[in-house]
């Protein structure tokens, strides 16, 4: 018997649909990184790093400047390719995927860039609507409602028509967060969400991230230099040193460590 026309998907679409379903239903950790190496010329940035982040869990990645924290995030979302090693997203290896398959995975991931990276030729509203226009079949009015809802969640609903250049750094981060959440991602990657912000705005961003994590139950990796922020928003902390994870655990585990580098790192921030 023939299926009704709208139920017959092309083979590629069927595979993709199946892949997305298995992605969402997978019991595997949200993010699994094993033996990841990345060098730029002779400079080794990541040297066999391994990490796991479960669904609904937040991992803060700390470390000195240039230790490859941002590179790690870019490898996880496929903006850079590792020299060797494995990155699994909900059990699916992504380092060998073709671009179309990788883009399907990317739709389930939100990324907040260090300087928000808002599209400066688009308004705040158009920035947040960008992923919705590309990847959903929402009507214009549905998109507008969703954008308003997202901007309300980050307290930016009054600035829909403004251009990115006309709002502060903190506001840009909020809009960047709203854009990252547009497709309801299962994984959120945050690159220095409080960098360059005053302590009060940093606190507001931390509270916002906590609220959004509670509401959306996402797995998150937060790269930060801000130890206070890491303590506030993360379940676990991983400290990178010499291209690898030096210590991983709760903040208390780090505080108890007798390692000289760990003590120095914590002392400097206290």
């Amino acid at each position, binding site marked *: 018997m023939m299926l009704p026309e709208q139920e017959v998907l092309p083979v590629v679409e069927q595979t993709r649909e199946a892949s997305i379903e298995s992605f969402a239903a997978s019991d595997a950790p949200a993010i699994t990184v094993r033996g990841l190496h990345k060098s730029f010329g002779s400079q080794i940035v990541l040297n066999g790093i391994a990490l796991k982040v479960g669904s609904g869990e937040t991992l803060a990645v700390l470390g000195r400047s240039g230790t490859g924290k941002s590179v790690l995030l*870019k490898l996880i*979302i496929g*903006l850079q390719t590792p020299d060797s090693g494995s990155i699994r997203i909900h059990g699916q290896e992504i380092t060998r995927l073709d*671009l*179309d398959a990788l*883009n*399907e995975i*990317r*739709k389930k*991931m939100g*990324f907040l*860039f*260090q*300087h928000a*990276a*808002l*599209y*400066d*030729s688009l308004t705040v509203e158009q920035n947040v609507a*960008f*992923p919705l226009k*590309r*990847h959903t079949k929402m009507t214009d009015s549905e998109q507008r409602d969703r954008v308003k809802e997202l901007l309300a969640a980050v307290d930016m609903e009054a600035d829909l028509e403004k251009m990115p250049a006309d709002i502060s750094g903190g506001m840009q981060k909020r809009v960047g967060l709203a*854009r990252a959440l547009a497709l309801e991602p299962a994984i959120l990657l945050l690159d220095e969400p409080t960098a360059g912000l005053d302590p009060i705005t940093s606190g507001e961003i931390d509270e916002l991230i906590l609220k959004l994590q509670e509401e959306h139950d996402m797995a998150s990796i937060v790269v930060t230099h801000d130890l206070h922020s890491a303590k506030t928003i993360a379940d676990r902390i991983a400290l990178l040193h010499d291209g690898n994870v030096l210590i991983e655990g709760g903040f208390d585990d780090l505080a108890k460590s007798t390692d000289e580098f760990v003590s120095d790192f914590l002392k400097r921030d206290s």
Partner: protein
Amino acid sequence: MRSTITSVWSLTNRFLEWFGDLGFFAWQVLRSAVRRPFEGRELIRQLDEIGSRSFPLVALAGAAIGAVLALETRSSLVQFGAKSMLPAAIVFSIIHETGPVVTGLVVSGRVGAGIGAELGAMKVTEQIDAIEASGVNPYKFLAFTRIVACILMLPLLTLAADFSGVMVGWIANTLVEPISFHKFIHQGLAGTSFNDFLAPTFRTSVFGLIIGMIACFQGMRTQGGTAGVGLSATSSVVLSSLFVILADVILVKVILVFFS
């Protein structure tokens, strides 16, 4: 001697590396072109940005060329007693060579610098990464749309340059020695066929491909902050102008072989 050989070798290496990277970039753009979505809205925005907004400058450049041709050629032709050839000299020169080349160079300057600087700024502020991270192919969204817009708009802009050049050439000619526009055009187009008009105009599509491809390539490989953006804008203009001139020489020969 050894240092000269080393610097020539290094320069050759960099040139070949640049060509290799450009080839890889062109392949990525071509590969993205056959995949959905076809970015219709962005293409229309780029057609407006590259076409409509270049129109005044291109028309003005065409007009200037028309005026200069009329004034300069007149004295030469009068000397040889061939004054009646003036309309043909102006029209033939503008349609065959001056219109297309001036349009190519003006668009290289305005659009090449614009694309190089815009994409360069997007690269250094991680906006291109943000596009990629949201599951959109930047080769398609940013490069393909701009390149296609350049390819489609260059012939139309050339028509505008040709038209304004011929019009102003007639006006400049009429100010010295009145002649009706109908007679001017009739004398100007005498002995020319449709091919004389078609091939030179459509060779500017190749100029559009060169300008769009080089400007997008230079912009999307920008490194090093604002200084890098400036460098990308400058190199986009210099390289696209250079390759437009080279392509012109080659295409003139091709047109002479196949369309004469």
